[in-house]
Structures are given as C-alpha cells and as structure tokens.
C-alpha cells in the first residue's frame, strides 16, 4: 500500500469574480507515492503543482476524491484529526516562511510545542536538528540574520522537528543561487537516505530532479499527463505537453527561436538525434551518414546525466542529395529517435 495515495482527486476554486468560470486547479488526479520515494512534480506555472501538495497535507481541502496517508483518508477526517496527521508531514517553502519573531531555536521548537513535547525533549531534539543542518552556532539568531541557504536549512530542521514520515517541498530551492541550491539538495538527499523520509518535491529546475528525484510526474492544466522513472520521462517523454516541458529544462534541445536562427544559417534539413544509455552508440549513427554520403554539421547539442544514466541530444544540419539524406535517416530511425527540427 502506497504511503501517499490520491484517488480521483479534484479541486476547484470558486470564480474570482461573479459570473466568472470556476478554476479547476486539480482535475481527476490519481497518484501513488511509495514509502522512501523522492517524487518530483514538474510542469508549467499554473499547472496545479502547489495545489496538489497542499491537498496532501490538507492545507487545502479536496472538492472530490480521496487522499490516503498511510491508509487513512484525510478527506473524511475532521480538522482536529487532520492536525495530528499534519505533524507527520513536514513542509518547506520557496520563501522559507520562518517565524521572524522567533529565534532559530524557537522556530525549530515550534512543531514540538504543538505536539506537546516537554522542555527537555524539545531542547535535545532541537540540538540534534541544528547539528544535522549544520547551524548549531545560530540557535540564538533571528531569521533576518541568516543567508537564504541558512534560512532554508532552518526551514528543513523545523519541518523535520516532529519526526515526520513525509516531507513536502514546494520550490524549496528556487530562491537560492546555484551553489546554495546544491547544498540544500544534498541535505534533502540525506533526509531521504538517512531517515527514510518520503519526499515530494515540486520544481521547475532540472538540477533538483537530476540530483534528487527517483520518480517524476509531469502536470499540465491540473492533470498528471505523464509519470514514471525520472530517466524514462526525461529521456523519452511520450505526451506532447511533457515533451514540450522537458525540452525547456533538458540541455541540448534547441528552442523554437533557436530553430528559427538555425534555419536562417542552414538551408538543408535540420534533425535532432536523441541518444540514451543502452541505445546504440553515436558512432553507428555517424557511420550511417557517412555510408549514405550525407554531409553534416553539428549545430546544437548537450548531454544530461540523471543519477549516473546518460542521455543527450545532437542537432545536425544535413547536406547532400535528398534521396541520400532520406535513406540515411530511415536507417538511423531504426536505432534511435529522430526529430525533424521546426516541424
């Protein structure tokens, strides 16, 4: 049984103005997240990612459908019981949302006070967390005296205080610079591996998915359009909307504008070859081109590494007789995915 299980979940908001359309933020989503997963949720702005995680800890109530946490249906529970379950679900935020009126110590202690822990327990647990996030010397500081990365580490410590089994992260690194992002991601990785905490991470950053996620779901207009193993989804997206999204975050695929620029410079066909670990090697492809007497120039490309598995894209401008080009491409298509640029 999955740790987090959504069944036909929908969420609509009333229209912003009278007579307007209702906003369908989540549209009939069914999703299982297993214990120990780091589940990435990606998609364009407004796709419903934040709403989805806020439904998981019932900050927002569903319009229909069921959400089970460890088998218990949150949607059927009164607020009192939901609050107790929330103690077992930590959450971190893009803007950190620390309590500015409280010291770092008291920020982290807050969930423990809510849980009714005694002073001694609180003190030792907070110390433990401070050393886990590497901020022991900042216990007496206030949030405004911390850097962004330090703030998020306090956020993580606070979210973990009540020893939750689930951590929800909504764009937790989007406000941080690349270096700080990797520090925070490394910390989150430890949260998953050392404590076995299941993490649901919303992001639009490839970095986060690459270093952290084991599974990923792509959202579009309130629906999950594609889901599965990170490498599969990123190296070989099936749905049009996930293809579109993946191409914006993956290195090596020219954007629409870039294709137009390429078109101006190259008169012949422009094709993108997508390679994946386990597929044929690049040399086979180049051999095919040479055999058919097709000239080429590499005009765009990039290689991605997702937790040790590699995939990449090479865009080539072809030259030579049209029939030769067609022959070579037909052969190559039997080995790897070929996309004609701008089509």
């Amino acid at each position: 049984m999955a740790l987090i299980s959504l069944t036909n979940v929908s969420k609509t908001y009333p229209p912003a103005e009278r007579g307007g359309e209702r906003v369908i933020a989540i549209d009939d989503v069914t999703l299982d997240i297993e214990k120990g997963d780091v589940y990435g949720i990606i998609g364009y702005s407004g796709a419903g990612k934040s709403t989805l995680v806020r439904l998981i800890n019932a900050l927002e109530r569903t319009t229909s459908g069921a959400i089970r946490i460890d088998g218990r249906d949150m949607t059927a529970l009164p607020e009192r019981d939901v609050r107790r379950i929330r103690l077992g679900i930590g959450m971190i935020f893009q803007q950190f949302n620390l309590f500015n009126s409280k010291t770092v110590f008291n920020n982290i202690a807050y969930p423990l006070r809510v849980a009714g822990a005694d002073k001694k327990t609180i003190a030792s647990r907070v110390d433990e967390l401070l050393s886990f996030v590497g901020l022991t010397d900042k216990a007496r500081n206030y949030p405004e005296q911390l850097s962004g990365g330090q703030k998020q580490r306090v956020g993580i410590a606070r979210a973990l205080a009540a020893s939750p089994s689930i951590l929800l992260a909504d764009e937790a690194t989007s406000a941080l610079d690349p270096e700080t992002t990797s520090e925070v991601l490394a910390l989150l990785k430890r949260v998953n591996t050392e404590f076995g905490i299941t993490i649901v991470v919303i992001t639009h950053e490839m970095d986060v998915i690459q270093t952290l996620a084991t599974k990923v779901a792509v959202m579009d207009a309130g629906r999950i359009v594609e889901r599965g193993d990170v490498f599969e989804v990123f190296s070989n997206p099936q749905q049009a909307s996930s293809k579109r999204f993946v191409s914006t975050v993956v290195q090596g695929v020219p954007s629409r504008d870039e294709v137009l620029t390429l078109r101006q410079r190259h008169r012949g066909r422009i094709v993108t070859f997508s390679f994946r670990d386990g597929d044929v090697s690049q040399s086979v492809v180049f051999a095919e081109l040479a055999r058919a007497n097709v000239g080429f120039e590499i005009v765009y490309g990039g290689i991605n590494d997702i937790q040790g598995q590699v995939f990449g894209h090479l865009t080539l401008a072809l030259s030579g007789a049209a029939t030769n080009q067609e022959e070579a491409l037909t052969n190559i298509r039997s080995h790897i995915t070929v996309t004609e640029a701008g089509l």
Partner: protein
Amino acid sequence: MNELIDLLPKLWQATFETLYIVGLSLLFGGVGGLVLGLGLYVTRRGNLYQNRVVFGVLNVLVNVFRPIPFIIFLAAAQPLARAVLGVGIGNNAIIFTLSLAATFGVSRIVEQNLLTVQPGVIEAARSVGAGRLRIVSTIVVPEALGPLILGYTFIFVALVDMSAVAGYIGGGGLGNFAIQYGYRQFNPAVTWAAVLIIIIIVQLVQFLGNWLARKALRR
C-alpha cells in the same frame, strides 16, 4: 507667574488625572480594540476563521462609529455612560467614553498591522498542525508586535488629545486645567504650563514606544 506657583498643586493634580484617564482608557480601549481588531482580521475572507456575516457586521460597526468627532461622540454616549456606570459626568464617565472611542480606532490599527503578517508564515504554522487559536496567539500577534506597539503609542497620543475635552462632562485633567485656569483667566503662562506637561508626556511615551518597538523588531 505667581498665580502659576499658587496653582502648582492643582497642576500636579491635573497631570495625575490626565495620566489616570488616558492610562485606563488605553487599557480598556486597547484590550477592546485588540479583540475587535482580531475579530476583523480572523473573519476576513481567506483568513483563519473567515466568516462573511461576522466580518460584515464588525466592519460596518467600526465604519459607523470611528469617524464620529470625539466631542459629539462624548455627548452622544453620555446616556450610555449613565446607564452603565450610574453617572454621566466626571472622570469615570470620560474613561468609559474614551475607551469606547478608542476601541474602534484601535481595532483598525490592529487589523491593519495583523494584515501585514505574511500568509506563508501562517501556512507554515498550519503545516505543522498548529490550531487556529494557537496560531493567532503564538504567530500572528508576535509577528506583528513591532508595528502594533507603534500603533498603541499613536493611540496613547490621540487619547491625550481627546482627554483634553474631559472638562465638557465635568472631568479633570490638563485640558480642563488649561481652559479653566489659563484660558478663562486670561493667563497664558498657566495654559502653556499645561501644554508643556502634555508635550513632555507625549515625548516620553513616544520615546518609550519607539524603544519597545525597536526591541520587538530588533532594529
């Protein structure tokens, strides 16, 4: 000048009365305003206890009573003061009326300052399972404490101003003193002595308020 020296005991008495009137009015009006302001804040759409009806009623109530000029409010509330306290005149009647007027004024200041608390911070508290009452008392109010202190300081100064008309219903205090012994006796020195004390009180309180607010904001 000699008259002023003769009047000194009365001046101290008036100073004490002003502090007494303003202090108690700030206490009652401050608590009343805090409750009403919290009510406005939590029942507002999208907030912890959102409730259109309650918010609507409170909002209209405040909008009706707050803009009434104090001297008119004082006269209009006299029957109410008499009904509640048994007397319609004197220091206690003015404390009653000032507290009532301050409640409406303070409520808006409280509401506005609480609205500056980031919704994300409240969401963070909700996400760890905190109940609504706990969130209001341990997060919302402390997060807005600095500006709240400045708001209360502002109200203290306004109350000193409003208390000056206490003489109108037979109350004491520096305003009454200045009118009775200064203005009516054509003795500007006496008037200005009262004004000077008011300025000193206001300065001291403003200083204290700024200091406390700075401590709360740690700036």
